[in-house]
């Protein structure tokens, strides 16, 4: 059953109207602090919620508990050191944070990584998506009370992380991307190992489909909850699966000219018309499946050749500005790098993270919603705290 536009707005209007009536009756509502230590927020996000009974009158997210001041730190570091810092922003999508930054710097410097490096970067990018969204598929279950899916997620994600460790050395923080290519090439036997892991990930997706998507209680808890109309989503700058679940057919991997190897692989961008919590879960489930297919095709067509373009030992990036954004697991992540031509690092580096905008819609979305639905909506938006606070 899909929720039409009309149905959704009546639901929200009804909820809000009830909330207002009770509000006008001057019943003294309760202000509740969800967080910063709360099981439902991935990290330290605090949401001040004013309740009337179990319904939310208004909600105001308070962030900054994990503000590490990335943009200031980046200005005092060299390009080489920044990739280490930067893959700690969205700590679940490890490799995917480094890629846009490195692409921006390569764009400024005017160098192009050799094809083999681009293909391996794309493989790692999609594996970061699988690891990141794989955890979401399990985590959404535990937020709604089902204990087992999250263990399946962690169990199957382990293999992807082991693959990353065997190739890059780090499970969570690979630091494998260099301006002009990659640090090293893949170890022997990695490609076959990767194929078996991709097969296992598809089985994991089928298990999730059986365990949650088909489950009536899950559908009752997520259908028609937290509906984001297309226009409101764009107005707040939502990106990634959140906006594709509201019917916007936009994916930076296909729509923006990126040197990585997505063009050489045929894959499909999944969207869903409803825009509710179920749609977001469903779109991410299909995206993980699609990512395993992409990786398989990339592994088949992996070109051979050098892994690193010829680069000088001391990197001096010429003066200029560049903006590169890629389709990270959580949404559009972009770097606006300004270089002053000096020997050190970038002059200014604005880091655009997807969760910052994804969470910005929460005050609008949580009006007139029940308390258990707050958790469903927050879980379905799938933000990472490092992304919001930078």
């Amino acid at each position: 059953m899909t929720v039409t536009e009309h149905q959704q707005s009546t639901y929200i209007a009804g909820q809000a109207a009830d909330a207002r009536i009770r509000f006008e009756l001057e019943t003294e509502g309760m202000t509740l602090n969800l967080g910063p230590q709360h099981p439902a927020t991935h990290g330290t996000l605090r949401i001040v919620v004013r309740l009337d009974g179990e319904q939310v009158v208004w909600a105001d997210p308070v962030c900054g508990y994990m503000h590490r001041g990335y943009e200031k730190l980046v200005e005092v570091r060299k390009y080489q050191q920044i990739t280490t810092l930067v893959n700690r922003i969205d700590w679940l999508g490890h490799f995917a944070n480094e890629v846009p930054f490195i692409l921006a710097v390569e764009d400024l410097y005017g160098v192009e990584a050799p094809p083999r490096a681009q293909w391996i970067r794309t493989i790692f990018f999609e594996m970061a998506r699988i690891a990141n969204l794989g955890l979401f598929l399990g985590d959404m279950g535990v937020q709604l009370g089902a204990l087992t899916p999250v263990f399946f997620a962690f169990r199957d994600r382990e293999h992807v992380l082991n693959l990353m460790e065997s190739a890059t050395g780090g499970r969570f923080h690979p630091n494998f991307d260099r301006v002009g290519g990659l640090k090293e090439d893949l170890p022997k036997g990695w490609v076959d190992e990767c194929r078996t892991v991709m097969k296992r990930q598809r089985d994991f997706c089928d298990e999730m489909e059986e365990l949650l998507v088909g489950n009536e209680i899950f559908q009752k808890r997520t259908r028609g909850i937290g509906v984001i109309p297309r226009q409101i989503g764009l107005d707040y700058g939502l990106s990634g699966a959140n906006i594709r679940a509201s019917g916007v057919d936009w994916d930076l991997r296909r729509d923006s000219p990126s040197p990585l190897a997505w063009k050489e692989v045929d894959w499909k961008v999944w969207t869903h018309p409803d825009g509710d919590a179920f749609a977001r879960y469903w779109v991410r489930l299909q995206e993980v499946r699609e990512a395993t297919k992409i990786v398989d095709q990339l592994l088949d067509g992996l070109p051979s050749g050098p892994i690193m373009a010829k680069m000088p030992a001391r990197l001096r990036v010429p003066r200029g500005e560049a903006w590169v954004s890629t389709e990270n697991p959580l949404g559009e992540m972009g770097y606006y790098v300004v270089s002053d031509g000096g020997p050190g690092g970038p002059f200014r580096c604005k880091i655009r993270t997807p969760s910052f905008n994804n969470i910005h819609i929460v005050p609008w979305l949580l009006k007139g919603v029940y308390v258990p639905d707050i958790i469903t909506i927050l879980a379905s938006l799938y933000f990472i705290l490092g992304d919001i606070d930078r």
Partner: protein
Amino acid sequence: MSDTGATSLEGEATEPEATEPEPAAEAVPQEPDPLRDPLVQALEVDLGADLLTSAVERNDVWVRVPAAAWFRAVEVLKTRHDFDYICFLSGIDWKAAPDFASRNERTFDPAPLEEGVAADGLIERGITGGDTRFQVLVRLYSIERRLGITLKADLDSVAPSVQSIVPLYRGADWHEREAWEMFGFDFIGHPGLRHLYLPSEFEGHPMRKDFPLLAREVKPWPGLVDVEPLPGGDDEPEVSEVS
């Protein structure tokens, strides 16, 4: 027009070539970009004199408008050219950054005047130039046309302030709060300018270049300890400076 000779472009040049004074940046004129040039032309028609400089570079459109025309420019983009997605809004402090990397001791002292730093200590601007210390920039994206644009505006160096675009894009609210908190830009008409990340009693604007990064002051740089001189050696103390 900016006196520092950044890319300045007058009139109706069909394909805007980025004439960079420095040899470093490539000065080759771009081949006409079918997707973006009509947009630049349409903007020139809509904004007229307010469009100070515009450039199509690195397959992106960069436009600079005066601070007064900021709201109008964003409004034109949103209504007439259906840029419905707000990517981000942020600021830049163009004051020359104290050069951390190349020198031995990483203490913070006012930057030496190097090449590329204009007389008033403001560093060479980026693609669309600019003349004041602070610049606010917003990046909008149109989903149907698969097209992005970065809009910039120079703000006054002493009291930077600009019209808030929250009435146009609700998503700009937090971005503006962050810019206010980090750079000190005042956004007129913003629903509630309060701290987003920093504690409420925090003074100063951290992202400004003259705001010292204390982490580097507190801990002395371990590299300072150089190989001490040879006992009774003849040559001068060995400072192993590999640069």
